[in-house]
């Protein structure tokens, strides 16, 4: 019963949250340089490098809505606008996480692991960074060999 209510509420929020235009698959986006509202904003902006350059980039490359602001549209021919920044973020986040993890795992094997957390061992750190660069491959390898996750027997479970 409880899960039914949750599903019903989730459906209600989902349906009420989608604007009709997006649901119908239609958009009113036009290239920014053809949008009168955008051009007005561009002319009103202060004439400095930090305003000129972005506005010129928007007018050449992006699509604007009726209010004259640029929008990123989720459609296939513009997928690269979303995919590339996502890929860069995802790879970089993984790189940072995997390097740190590799360093900590290696430092645990040393005689004084705590000292290696306070004073960074440069050769080991560089080795960890190199491992971090290959993180998608290493993560896949560790997932298939079950090194990535802890064994069920190692997890404590509260009595129920």
């Amino acid at each position, binding site marked *: 019963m409880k899960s039914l209510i949750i599903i019903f509420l989730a459906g209600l929020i989902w349906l009420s949250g989608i604007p009709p235009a997006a649901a119908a698959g239609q958009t009113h986006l036009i290239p920014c340089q053809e949008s009168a509202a955008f051009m007005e904003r561009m002319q009103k902006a202060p004439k400095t490098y930090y305003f000129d350059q972005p506005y010129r*980039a928007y007018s050449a490359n992006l699509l604007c809505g009726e209010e004259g602001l640029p929008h990123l549209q989720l459609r296939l021919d513009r997928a690269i606008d979303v995919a590339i920044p996502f890929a860069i973020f995802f790879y970089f986040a993984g790189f940072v996480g995997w390097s740190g993890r590799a360093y900590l795992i290696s430092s645990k094997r040393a005689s004084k692991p705590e000292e290696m957390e306070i004073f960074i061992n440069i050769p080991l750190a560089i080795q960890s960074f190199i491992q971090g660069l290959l993180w998608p491959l290493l993560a896949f390898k560790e997932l298939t060999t079950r090194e990535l996750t802890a064994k069920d027997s190692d997890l404590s479970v509260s009595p129920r």
Partner: protein
Amino acid sequence: MMASLMKYLTSAPVMAALALVILSVVMIELNYLFPGLQYGTYFHTAP
């Protein structure tokens, strides 16, 4: 003397500051090479 200097330089706060400086330089260079990056116009030619 040299050993204690190296130990100080490899301490976590110094290394963290160094990493921050390197990251800032990388970001500034990326912005120089791909001027569209900061505007969300990724890898389209900037005017």
